[in-house]
Protein backbone atom coordinates (compact mmCIF):
# COMPACT_ATOMS: atom_id res chain seq x y z
CA UNK A 1 0.00 0.00 0.00
CA UNK A 2 1.17 3.51 -0.83
CA UNK A 3 0.54 6.15 1.77
CA UNK A 4 1.28 9.89 1.76
CA UNK A 5 1.13 11.62 5.13
CA UNK A 6 0.97 15.37 5.68
CA UNK A 7 3.01 16.26 2.59
CA UNK A 8 4.04 19.91 2.25
CA UNK A 9 5.93 21.36 -0.70
CA UNK A 10 6.65 24.96 -1.79
CA UNK A 11 7.54 26.11 -5.31
CA UNK A 12 10.90 27.89 -5.72
CA UNK A 13 9.01 31.20 -5.74
CA UNK A 14 7.63 30.43 -2.28
CA UNK A 15 4.06 29.52 -3.28
CA UNK A 16 2.67 26.59 -1.28
CA UNK A 17 1.80 23.89 -3.83
CA UNK A 18 1.06 20.96 -1.51
CA UNK A 19 -0.42 21.85 1.82
CA UNK A 20 -0.68 18.97 4.28
CA UNK A 21 -1.72 16.42 1.66
CA UNK A 22 -2.51 12.92 2.86
CA UNK A 23 -4.02 9.95 1.01
CA UNK A 24 -3.46 6.28 0.45
CA UNK A 25 -3.75 3.88 -2.48
CA UNK A 26 -4.63 0.32 -1.42
CA UNK A 27 -3.00 -2.70 -3.14
CA UNK A 28 -4.37 -3.85 -6.47
CA UNK A 29 -6.35 -0.67 -7.00
CA UNK A 30 -6.37 1.96 -9.70
CA UNK A 31 -6.54 5.41 -8.20
CA UNK A 32 -7.09 8.42 -10.43
CA UNK A 33 -6.02 11.80 -9.09
CA UNK A 34 -7.91 14.70 -10.57
CA UNK A 35 -8.54 18.35 -9.85
CA UNK A 36 -7.95 21.81 -11.29
CA UNK A 37 -4.73 22.73 -13.08
CA UNK A 38 -2.17 24.13 -10.68
CA UNK A 39 -3.80 22.28 -7.79
CA UNK A 40 -0.72 20.14 -7.07
CA UNK A 41 -1.50 16.84 -8.85
CA UNK A 42 1.74 16.58 -10.86
CA UNK A 43 3.79 17.61 -7.84
CA UNK A 44 2.13 14.85 -5.81
CA UNK A 45 3.01 12.33 -8.54
CA UNK A 46 6.62 13.53 -8.62
CA UNK A 47 6.82 13.29 -4.84
CA UNK A 48 5.73 9.64 -5.04
CA UNK A 49 8.43 8.93 -7.67
CA UNK A 50 11.16 10.76 -5.74
CA UNK A 51 11.63 13.46 -8.40
CA UNK A 52 10.64 16.12 -5.89
CA UNK A 53 11.53 16.11 -2.19
CA UNK A 54 8.79 17.29 0.19
CA UNK A 55 9.48 20.02 2.72
CA UNK A 56 7.80 17.87 5.32
CA UNK A 57 5.60 14.80 5.54
CA UNK A 58 6.27 11.11 4.95
CA UNK A 59 5.71 8.58 2.19
CA UNK A 60 5.27 4.89 2.99
CA UNK A 61 5.39 1.89 0.66
CA UNK A 62 3.98 -1.24 2.30
CA UNK A 63 4.63 0.31 5.65
CA UNK A 64 8.25 1.17 4.90
CA UNK A 65 9.21 4.85 5.05
CA UNK A 66 10.63 5.72 1.60
CA UNK A 67 10.68 9.51 2.08
CA UNK A 68 14.49 9.72 2.17
CA UNK A 69 15.00 7.56 -0.93
CA UNK A 70 16.05 9.38 -4.12
CA UNK A 71 14.58 8.65 -7.59
CA UNK A 72 16.94 5.71 -8.28
CA UNK A 73 16.35 4.14 -4.87
CA UNK A 74 12.61 4.74 -5.16
CA UNK A 75 12.65 2.95 -8.56
CA UNK A 76 14.55 0.03 -7.03
CA UNK A 77 12.10 -0.08 -4.13
CA UNK A 78 9.26 -0.68 -6.59
CA UNK A 79 7.94 2.65 -7.83
CA UNK A 80 7.54 3.45 -11.56
CA UNK A 81 6.75 6.81 -13.10
CA UNK A 82 5.35 7.67 -16.55
CA UNK A 83 6.29 11.19 -17.62
CA UNK A 84 3.66 13.61 -18.88
CA UNK A 85 6.14 14.76 -21.54
CA UNK A 86 8.05 11.61 -22.51
CA UNK A 87 11.79 12.16 -22.83
CA UNK A 88 13.49 11.61 -26.20
CA UNK A 89 16.98 10.18 -26.63
CA UNK A 90 19.14 10.37 -29.74
CA UNK A 91 20.73 6.99 -30.33
CA UNK A 92 18.78 4.95 -27.76
CA UNK A 93 16.48 2.44 -29.40
CA UNK A 94 13.08 1.32 -28.14
CA UNK A 95 14.67 -2.11 -27.55
CA UNK A 96 17.43 -0.61 -25.37
CA UNK A 97 14.96 1.51 -23.39
CA UNK A 98 12.73 -1.50 -22.70
CA UNK A 99 15.75 -3.58 -21.68
CA UNK A 100 16.88 -0.87 -19.26
CA UNK A 101 13.34 -0.83 -17.86
CA UNK A 102 13.22 -4.61 -17.51
CA UNK A 103 16.63 -4.56 -15.81
CA UNK A 104 18.61 -6.47 -18.45
CA UNK A 105 18.41 -8.50 -21.65
CA UNK A 106 14.97 -9.87 -22.34
CA UNK A 107 13.65 -12.19 -25.03
CA UNK A 108 12.22 -10.89 -28.28
CA UNK A 109 8.87 -12.41 -27.25
CA UNK A 110 8.83 -10.49 -24.00
CA UNK A 111 9.67 -7.22 -25.79
CA UNK A 112 6.80 -7.97 -28.16
CA UNK A 113 4.47 -8.41 -25.19
CA UNK A 114 5.45 -5.03 -23.74
CA UNK A 115 4.74 -3.25 -27.01
CA UNK A 116 1.59 -5.25 -27.76
CA UNK A 117 0.13 -4.00 -24.46
CA UNK A 118 0.28 -0.46 -25.83
CA UNK A 119 -0.86 -1.46 -29.31
CA UNK A 120 2.49 -1.22 -31.11
CA UNK A 121 4.08 -3.77 -33.42
CA UNK A 122 7.52 -4.83 -32.15
CA UNK A 123 8.89 -5.45 -35.65
CA UNK A 124 8.18 -1.88 -36.59
CA UNK A 125 9.40 -0.18 -33.42
CA UNK A 126 12.07 -2.15 -31.53
CA UNK A 127 15.00 -0.84 -33.54
CA UNK A 128 13.74 2.71 -33.91
CA UNK A 129 15.40 5.40 -31.86
CA UNK A 130 13.39 7.08 -29.11
CA UNK A 131 13.94 10.41 -30.87
CA UNK A 132 12.01 13.21 -32.52
CA UNK A 133 10.94 11.01 -35.45
CA UNK A 134 8.32 9.36 -33.21
CA UNK A 135 4.93 11.07 -33.17
CA UNK A 136 3.36 12.33 -29.94
CA UNK A 137 1.08 9.28 -29.78
CA UNK A 138 3.90 6.82 -30.50
CA UNK A 139 6.24 8.21 -27.87
CA UNK A 140 3.44 8.20 -25.28
CA UNK A 141 2.85 4.53 -25.87
CA UNK A 142 6.55 3.75 -25.70
CA UNK A 143 6.74 5.70 -22.46
CA UNK A 144 3.88 3.60 -21.06
CA UNK A 145 5.53 0.38 -22.31
CA UNK A 146 8.81 1.38 -20.64
CA UNK A 147 6.98 1.83 -17.36
CA UNK A 148 5.02 -1.42 -17.65
CA UNK A 149 8.20 -3.38 -18.49
CA UNK A 150 9.36 -2.67 -14.95
CA UNK A 151 6.46 -4.57 -13.39
CA UNK A 152 6.67 -2.71 -10.08
CA UNK A 153 4.26 -2.61 -7.18
CA UNK A 154 3.36 1.04 -7.72
CA UNK A 155 2.98 2.64 -11.13
CA UNK A 156 2.30 6.36 -11.46
CA UNK A 157 1.26 8.01 -14.75
CA UNK A 158 1.22 11.78 -14.95
CA UNK A 159 -1.51 12.91 -17.36
CA UNK A 160 -0.88 10.27 -20.01
CA UNK A 161 -3.48 11.90 -22.26
CA UNK A 162 -1.75 15.30 -22.37
CA UNK A 163 -0.53 16.56 -25.73
CA UNK A 164 -1.79 13.86 -28.07
CA UNK A 165 -4.22 14.02 -30.96
CA UNK A 166 -7.79 12.78 -30.81
CA UNK A 167 -7.10 9.55 -32.70
CA UNK A 168 -4.21 8.63 -30.42
CA UNK A 169 -6.31 9.62 -27.43
CA UNK A 170 -9.03 7.08 -28.21
CA UNK A 171 -6.40 4.35 -28.53
CA UNK A 172 -4.69 5.46 -25.36
CA UNK A 173 -7.90 5.19 -23.39
CA UNK A 174 -8.22 1.64 -24.71
CA UNK A 175 -4.68 0.92 -23.50
CA UNK A 176 -5.63 2.06 -20.01
CA UNK A 177 -8.86 0.11 -20.08
CA UNK A 178 -6.80 -3.01 -20.90
CA UNK A 179 -4.28 -2.18 -18.18
CA UNK A 180 -7.14 -1.82 -15.73
CA UNK A 181 -8.27 -5.36 -16.57
CA UNK A 182 -4.83 -6.93 -16.04
CA UNK A 183 -3.76 -4.70 -13.18
CA UNK A 184 -1.00 -6.05 -10.99
CA UNK A 185 0.18 -3.91 -8.12
CA UNK A 186 -1.36 -0.47 -7.69
CA UNK A 187 -1.68 2.23 -10.29
CA UNK A 188 -2.01 5.97 -9.80
CA UNK A 189 -3.04 8.01 -12.83
CA UNK A 190 -3.22 11.78 -12.87
CA UNK A 191 -6.01 12.65 -15.28
CA UNK A 192 -8.85 14.97 -16.15
CA UNK A 193 -10.43 12.50 -18.52
CA UNK A 194 -13.88 11.25 -17.67
CA UNK A 195 -13.19 7.96 -19.44
CA UNK A 196 -10.13 7.37 -17.29
CA UNK A 197 -12.00 8.49 -14.18
CA UNK A 198 -14.67 5.93 -15.02
CA UNK A 199 -12.23 2.99 -14.88
CA UNK A 200 -10.84 4.05 -11.50
CA UNK A 201 -11.44 2.16 -8.28
CA UNK A 202 -10.77 5.30 -6.30
CA UNK A 203 -10.89 8.96 -7.26
CA UNK A 204 -8.74 11.42 -5.36
CA UNK A 205 -9.49 15.09 -5.89
CA UNK A 206 -6.67 17.51 -5.14
CA UNK A 207 -7.29 21.26 -5.22
CA UNK A 208 -5.20 24.10 -3.77
CA UNK A 209 -2.66 21.56 -2.62
CA UNK A 210 -5.11 19.78 -0.36
CA UNK A 211 -7.16 16.62 -0.53
CA UNK A 212 -10.60 17.84 -1.56
CA UNK A 213 -12.32 14.51 -1.83
CA UNK A 214 -11.57 10.83 -1.97
CA UNK A 215 -13.78 7.83 -2.48
CA UNK A 216 -14.99 5.03 -4.73
CA UNK A 217 -15.10 6.09 -8.39
CA UNK A 218 -18.84 5.84 -8.92
CA UNK A 219 -19.74 8.01 -5.98
CA UNK A 220 -16.96 10.58 -6.41
CA UNK A 221 -17.40 10.91 -10.17
CA UNK A 222 -21.14 11.37 -9.71
CA UNK A 223 -20.48 14.18 -7.27
CA UNK A 224 -17.89 15.73 -9.58
CA UNK A 225 -20.08 15.72 -12.68
CA UNK A 226 -23.20 16.98 -10.93
CA UNK A 227 -21.43 19.52 -8.80
CA UNK A 228 -21.08 23.19 -9.51
CA UNK A 229 -17.86 23.95 -7.67
CA UNK A 230 -14.55 24.80 -9.31
CA UNK A 231 -13.34 21.17 -9.45
CA UNK A 232 -16.47 19.89 -11.14
CA UNK A 233 -16.40 22.80 -13.55
CA UNK A 234 -12.81 22.00 -14.41
CA UNK A 235 -13.47 18.33 -15.17
CA UNK A 236 -16.47 19.18 -17.32
CA UNK A 237 -14.74 22.05 -19.09
CA UNK A 238 -11.64 20.01 -19.89
CA UNK A 239 -13.89 17.27 -21.22
CA UNK A 240 -15.42 19.70 -23.69
CA UNK A 241 -12.06 20.74 -25.05
CA UNK A 242 -10.61 17.26 -25.54
Amino acid at each position, binding site marked *: MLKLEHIVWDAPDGRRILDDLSFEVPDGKLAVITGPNGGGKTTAAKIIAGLVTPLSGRIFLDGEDITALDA*TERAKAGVS*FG*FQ*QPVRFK*GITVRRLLEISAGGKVSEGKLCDYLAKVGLCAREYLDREVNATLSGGEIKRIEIASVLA*RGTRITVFDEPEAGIDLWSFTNLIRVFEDLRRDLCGSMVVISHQERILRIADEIIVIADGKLRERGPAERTLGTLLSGTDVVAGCVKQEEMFR
Partner: protein
Amino acid sequence: MSEIRINETTKKLLSEISDFSGEFKGAYNIRENGACAGRRSSEHIKITSKTDKPGLEIRIDPHTAGETVSIPACVTHGDVDDLVYNDFFVGEGADVVIVAGCGVHTETGEPARHNGIHRFLLGKGARVKYLEKHIGTGKGIGLRSIDPVTEAELGEDAVLEMDTAQIGGVDRTLRQTKATLGKGAKLFIRERILTERDQTAQTEFSVELNGEGSGVDLVSRSVAKDASHQEYHSVIIGNTACTGHSECDAIISGSATVNAQPELHANSEDAALIHEAAIGKIAGEQIMKLRTLGLTEEEAEATIIEGFLS
Protein backbone atom coordinates in the same frame (compact mmCIF):
# COMPACT_ATOMS: atom_id res chain seq x y z
CA MET B 1 52.26 -12.55 -49.26
CA SER B 2 49.53 -14.13 -47.15
CA GLU B 3 51.16 -14.96 -43.81
CA ILE B 4 50.27 -12.61 -40.94
CA ARG B 5 53.24 -11.65 -38.73
CA ILE B 6 52.11 -9.19 -36.11
CA ASN B 7 53.01 -8.41 -32.53
CA GLU B 8 50.67 -8.84 -29.54
CA THR B 9 49.83 -5.12 -29.34
CA THR B 10 48.76 -5.10 -32.98
CA LYS B 11 46.61 -8.17 -32.33
CA LYS B 12 44.83 -6.35 -29.51
CA LEU B 13 44.43 -3.17 -31.55
CA LEU B 14 43.08 -5.12 -34.53
CA SER B 15 40.41 -6.79 -32.43
CA GLU B 16 39.29 -3.31 -31.30
CA ILE B 17 39.23 -1.62 -34.69
CA SER B 18 38.07 -4.50 -36.91
CA ASP B 19 36.56 -7.98 -36.65
CA PHE B 20 40.02 -9.57 -36.70
CA SER B 21 40.12 -12.96 -35.00
CA GLY B 22 43.47 -14.32 -36.17
CA GLU B 23 42.61 -13.75 -39.82
CA PHE B 24 40.58 -11.55 -42.13
CA LYS B 25 37.88 -12.57 -44.52
CA GLY B 26 38.60 -11.45 -48.07
CA ALA B 27 41.42 -9.22 -49.25
CA TYR B 28 43.51 -7.41 -46.65
CA ASN B 29 46.68 -5.53 -45.87
CA ILE B 30 47.94 -5.03 -42.33
CA ARG B 31 50.28 -2.12 -41.72
CA GLU B 32 52.34 -2.30 -38.53
CA ASN B 33 54.69 0.56 -37.59
CA GLY B 34 54.98 1.65 -41.19
CA ALA B 35 55.66 -1.77 -42.68
CA CYS B 36 53.49 -4.45 -44.27
CA ALA B 37 52.75 -7.27 -41.82
CA GLY B 38 50.48 -9.34 -44.04
CA ARG B 39 48.62 -8.98 -47.32
CA ARG B 40 46.25 -10.93 -49.49
CA SER B 41 44.53 -9.98 -52.73
CA SER B 42 41.41 -11.72 -53.94
CA GLU B 43 40.24 -12.58 -57.41
CA HIS B 44 38.44 -9.27 -57.79
CA ILE B 45 40.37 -7.04 -55.37
CA LYS B 46 44.06 -6.46 -56.06
CA ILE B 47 46.29 -4.80 -53.46
CA THR B 48 49.72 -3.57 -54.59
CA SER B 49 52.36 -1.32 -53.05
CA LYS B 50 52.85 2.15 -54.44
CA THR B 51 56.24 2.66 -56.03
CA ASP B 52 56.59 6.43 -55.60
CA LYS B 53 55.54 6.81 -51.94
CA PRO B 54 54.47 4.72 -48.97
CA GLY B 55 51.04 3.19 -49.40
CA LEU B 56 48.79 0.97 -51.43
CA GLU B 57 46.73 0.84 -54.55
CA ILE B 58 43.57 -1.13 -54.09
CA ARG B 59 41.81 -1.93 -57.34
CA ILE B 60 38.33 -3.35 -57.17
CA ASP B 61 37.02 -4.89 -60.38
CA PRO B 62 33.77 -3.62 -61.88
CA HIS B 63 30.69 -5.46 -60.58
CA THR B 64 32.55 -7.09 -57.68
CA ALA B 65 29.73 -7.93 -55.27
CA GLY B 66 29.58 -8.66 -51.56
CA GLU B 67 33.35 -8.62 -50.88
CA THR B 68 35.18 -6.97 -48.00
CA VAL B 69 38.66 -5.50 -48.05
CA SER B 70 40.43 -4.67 -44.77
CA ILE B 71 43.39 -2.31 -44.53
CA PRO B 72 44.05 -1.61 -40.85
CA ALA B 73 47.12 0.29 -39.65
CA CYS B 74 48.68 0.04 -36.21
CA VAL B 75 51.42 1.96 -34.45
CA THR B 76 52.51 -0.10 -31.45
CA HIS B 77 55.17 2.03 -29.77
CA GLY B 78 56.35 5.60 -29.32
CA ASP B 79 58.65 7.52 -31.62
CA VAL B 80 56.81 6.41 -34.76
CA ASP B 81 55.40 8.93 -37.24
CA ASP B 82 53.69 6.87 -39.89
CA LEU B 83 52.47 8.42 -43.13
CA VAL B 84 50.64 6.38 -45.74
CA TYR B 85 48.82 7.05 -49.02
CA ASN B 86 46.14 4.52 -49.94
CA ASP B 87 44.20 4.84 -53.19
CA PHE B 88 41.03 2.89 -53.86
CA PHE B 89 39.82 2.47 -57.41
CA VAL B 90 36.31 1.05 -57.26
CA GLY B 91 35.06 -0.25 -60.60
CA GLU B 92 31.67 0.46 -62.13
CA GLY B 93 28.79 -1.29 -60.41
CA ALA B 94 30.94 -2.84 -57.66
CA ASP B 95 29.34 -3.22 -54.22
CA VAL B 96 31.92 -3.70 -51.45
CA VAL B 97 32.78 -3.02 -47.83
CA ILE B 98 36.11 -1.37 -46.99
CA VAL B 99 37.27 -1.65 -43.38
CA ALA B 100 40.05 0.77 -42.50
CA GLY B 101 40.78 1.68 -38.92
CA CYS B 102 43.81 2.61 -36.98
CA GLY B 103 45.21 2.00 -33.53
CA VAL B 104 48.08 3.91 -31.92
CA HIS B 105 49.78 2.65 -28.78
CA THR B 106 52.60 4.04 -26.71
CA GLU B 107 54.01 2.97 -23.37
CA THR B 108 56.66 5.68 -23.28
CA GLY B 109 56.90 9.44 -23.33
CA GLU B 110 57.52 9.35 -27.08
CA PRO B 111 54.64 10.27 -29.40
CA ALA B 112 52.94 7.78 -31.72
CA ARG B 113 51.27 9.13 -34.85
CA HIS B 114 49.49 7.72 -37.86
CA ASN B 115 48.54 9.85 -40.80
CA GLY B 116 46.52 7.98 -43.41
CA ILE B 117 45.63 9.69 -46.66
CA HIS B 118 42.87 7.74 -48.36
CA ARG B 119 41.59 8.53 -51.83
CA PHE B 120 38.50 6.90 -53.25
CA LEU B 121 37.53 6.93 -56.90
CA LEU B 122 34.10 5.41 -57.32
CA GLY B 123 33.00 4.41 -60.81
CA LYS B 124 29.49 4.69 -62.17
CA GLY B 125 26.93 3.02 -59.90
CA ALA B 126 29.58 1.73 -57.47
CA ARG B 127 28.52 1.31 -53.83
CA VAL B 128 31.01 1.37 -50.99
CA LYS B 129 30.51 1.06 -47.27
CA TYR B 130 33.61 2.47 -45.60
CA LEU B 131 34.12 1.65 -41.91
CA GLU B 132 36.83 3.41 -39.98
CA LYS B 133 37.44 3.05 -36.25
CA HIS B 134 40.27 4.83 -34.45
CA ILE B 135 41.61 4.19 -30.96
CA GLY B 136 44.59 5.06 -28.80
CA THR B 137 45.92 2.76 -26.07
CA GLY B 138 48.90 2.35 -23.72
CA LYS B 139 50.00 3.97 -20.49
CA GLY B 140 52.77 6.15 -21.95
CA ILE B 141 52.48 9.91 -21.70
CA GLY B 142 53.60 10.31 -25.33
CA LEU B 143 50.86 11.87 -27.46
CA ARG B 144 48.77 9.52 -29.59
CA SER B 145 47.76 11.25 -32.80
CA ILE B 146 45.72 10.12 -35.77
CA ASP B 147 45.28 12.57 -38.63
CA PRO B 148 43.24 10.98 -41.39
CA VAL B 149 42.63 12.61 -44.75
CA THR B 150 39.85 11.19 -46.90
CA GLU B 151 39.25 12.34 -50.45
CA ALA B 152 36.44 10.86 -52.46
CA GLU B 153 35.30 11.34 -56.02
CA LEU B 154 31.92 9.82 -56.68
CA GLY B 155 30.96 9.07 -60.28
CA GLU B 156 27.44 8.99 -61.63
CA ASP B 157 25.00 7.24 -59.28
CA ALA B 158 27.82 6.07 -56.99
CA VAL B 159 27.04 5.71 -53.29
CA LEU B 160 29.58 6.05 -50.48
CA GLU B 161 28.60 5.40 -46.89
CA MET B 162 31.29 6.47 -44.44
CA ASP B 163 30.96 5.30 -40.87
CA THR B 164 33.74 6.62 -38.68
CA ALA B 165 34.29 6.40 -34.94
CA GLN B 166 36.99 7.66 -32.65
CA ILE B 167 35.86 6.78 -29.18
CA GLY B 168 38.80 6.90 -26.87
CA GLY B 169 42.47 7.31 -26.21
CA VAL B 170 43.48 9.51 -29.14
CA ASP B 171 45.08 12.68 -27.78
CA ARG B 172 45.21 14.77 -30.94
CA THR B 173 43.33 14.39 -34.17
CA LEU B 174 42.77 16.41 -37.28
CA ARG B 175 40.27 14.73 -39.57
CA GLN B 176 39.85 16.10 -43.07
CA THR B 177 37.25 14.77 -45.47
CA LYS B 178 36.72 16.10 -48.98
CA ALA B 179 34.31 14.81 -51.59
CA THR B 180 32.99 15.73 -55.02
CA LEU B 181 29.78 14.17 -56.26
CA GLY B 182 28.67 13.51 -59.82
CA LYS B 183 25.17 13.14 -61.20
CA GLY B 184 22.86 11.19 -58.89
CA ALA B 185 25.71 10.28 -56.51
CA LYS B 186 25.00 9.98 -52.79
CA LEU B 187 27.31 10.41 -49.83
CA PHE B 188 26.33 9.41 -46.30
CA ILE B 189 28.68 10.26 -43.46
CA ARG B 190 28.26 9.16 -39.84
CA GLU B 191 31.00 10.41 -37.56
CA ARG B 192 31.32 9.83 -33.81
CA ILE B 193 34.02 11.37 -31.65
CA LEU B 194 34.69 11.16 -27.93
CA THR B 195 37.36 13.28 -26.28
CA GLU B 196 38.33 13.38 -22.63
CA ARG B 197 41.08 14.75 -20.37
CA ASP B 198 43.04 17.33 -22.41
CA GLN B 199 42.47 15.73 -25.81
CA THR B 200 41.64 17.77 -28.89
CA ALA B 201 39.79 16.77 -32.04
CA GLN B 202 39.30 18.86 -35.11
CA THR B 203 37.11 17.65 -37.94
CA GLU B 204 36.69 19.31 -41.33
CA PHE B 205 34.34 18.35 -44.11
CA SER B 206 34.11 19.82 -47.57
CA VAL B 207 31.58 18.38 -49.99
CA GLU B 208 30.93 19.69 -53.50
CA LEU B 209 27.67 18.67 -55.07
CA ASN B 210 28.37 19.07 -58.78
CA GLY B 211 26.04 16.54 -60.39
CA GLU B 212 22.31 17.01 -60.76
CA GLY B 213 20.39 14.95 -58.22
CA SER B 214 23.43 14.37 -56.03
CA GLY B 215 23.06 14.45 -52.27
CA VAL B 216 24.98 14.38 -49.03
CA ASP B 217 23.78 13.51 -45.53
CA LEU B 218 26.40 14.29 -42.91
CA VAL B 219 25.76 13.49 -39.26
CA SER B 220 28.45 14.17 -36.67
CA ARG B 221 27.89 13.29 -33.03
CA SER B 222 30.48 14.08 -30.44
CA VAL B 223 31.01 13.99 -26.72
CA ALA B 224 33.59 16.29 -25.14
CA LYS B 225 34.44 15.54 -21.51
CA ASP B 226 36.83 16.93 -18.89
CA ALA B 227 39.05 19.70 -20.33
CA SER B 228 38.98 18.43 -23.93
CA HIS B 229 38.30 20.59 -26.96
CA GLN B 230 36.61 19.85 -30.27
CA GLU B 231 36.18 21.82 -33.45
CA TYR B 232 33.74 21.00 -36.21
CA HIS B 233 33.75 22.71 -39.56
CA SER B 234 31.64 21.57 -42.48
CA VAL B 235 31.29 23.12 -45.90
CA ILE B 236 28.60 21.89 -48.27
CA ILE B 237 28.60 23.48 -51.70
CA GLY B 238 25.55 22.95 -53.90
CA ASN B 239 26.35 23.84 -57.50
CA THR B 240 23.23 22.37 -59.09
CA ALA B 241 19.89 20.77 -58.25
CA CYS B 242 21.00 18.73 -55.24
CA THR B 243 20.29 18.06 -51.58
CA GLY B 244 22.60 18.60 -48.65
CA HIS B 245 21.96 17.98 -44.97
CA SER B 246 24.41 18.30 -42.14
CA GLU B 247 23.74 17.72 -38.48
CA CYS B 248 26.24 18.32 -35.74
CA ASP B 249 25.28 17.36 -32.21
CA ALA B 250 27.64 17.62 -29.30
CA ILE B 251 27.34 16.79 -25.62
CA ILE B 252 29.74 18.65 -23.36
CA SER B 253 30.62 18.07 -19.73
CA GLY B 254 33.20 19.31 -17.23
CA SER B 255 35.19 22.22 -18.63
CA ALA B 256 35.17 20.88 -22.19
CA THR B 257 34.69 23.28 -25.11
CA VAL B 258 33.20 22.72 -28.56
CA ASN B 259 33.19 25.02 -31.54
CA ALA B 260 30.90 24.23 -34.49
CA GLN B 261 31.04 26.11 -37.77
CA PRO B 262 28.69 24.77 -40.39
CA GLU B 263 28.78 26.43 -43.80
CA LEU B 264 26.30 26.04 -46.62
CA HIS B 265 26.95 27.47 -50.07
CA ALA B 266 24.03 27.38 -52.49
CA ASN B 267 25.20 28.26 -55.98
CA SER B 268 21.99 27.17 -57.66
CA GLU B 269 18.39 28.03 -56.87
CA ASP B 270 17.65 24.30 -56.96
CA ALA B 271 20.17 23.45 -54.28
CA ALA B 272 18.30 22.44 -51.10
CA LEU B 273 20.70 22.65 -48.17
CA ILE B 274 19.95 22.25 -44.48
CA HIS B 275 22.07 22.42 -41.38
CA GLU B 276 21.17 21.48 -37.83
CA ALA B 277 23.42 21.90 -34.83
CA ALA B 278 22.94 21.41 -31.12
CA ILE B 279 25.56 21.66 -28.39
CA GLY B 280 24.84 21.26 -24.71
CA LYS B 281 25.13 19.15 -21.63
CA ILE B 282 23.02 16.04 -21.13
CA ALA B 283 19.44 17.12 -20.52
CA GLY B 284 18.45 16.75 -16.86
CA GLU B 285 15.16 15.15 -17.83
CA GLN B 286 17.01 12.38 -19.73
CA ILE B 287 18.97 11.52 -16.60
CA MET B 288 15.79 11.71 -14.52
CA LYS B 289 13.90 9.36 -16.85
CA LEU B 290 16.65 6.73 -16.63
CA ARG B 291 16.84 7.14 -12.87
CA THR B 292 13.13 6.36 -12.62
CA LEU B 293 14.01 3.11 -14.42
CA GLY B 294 16.49 2.26 -11.66
CA LEU B 295 19.81 3.59 -13.01
CA THR B 296 22.09 5.74 -10.86
CA GLU B 297 23.02 9.19 -12.14
CA GLU B 298 26.42 7.89 -13.34
CA GLU B 299 24.87 4.86 -15.06
CA ALA B 300 22.30 7.12 -16.72
CA GLU B 301 25.01 9.44 -18.09
CA ALA B 302 27.05 6.52 -19.41
CA THR B 303 23.96 4.99 -21.04
CA ILE B 304 23.02 8.28 -22.73
CA ILE B 305 26.56 8.79 -24.07
CA GLU B 306 26.85 5.18 -25.24
CA GLY B 307 23.56 5.49 -27.14
CA PHE B 308 24.45 8.88 -28.56
CA LEU B 309 27.74 7.56 -29.96
CA SER B 310 26.36 4.19 -31.10
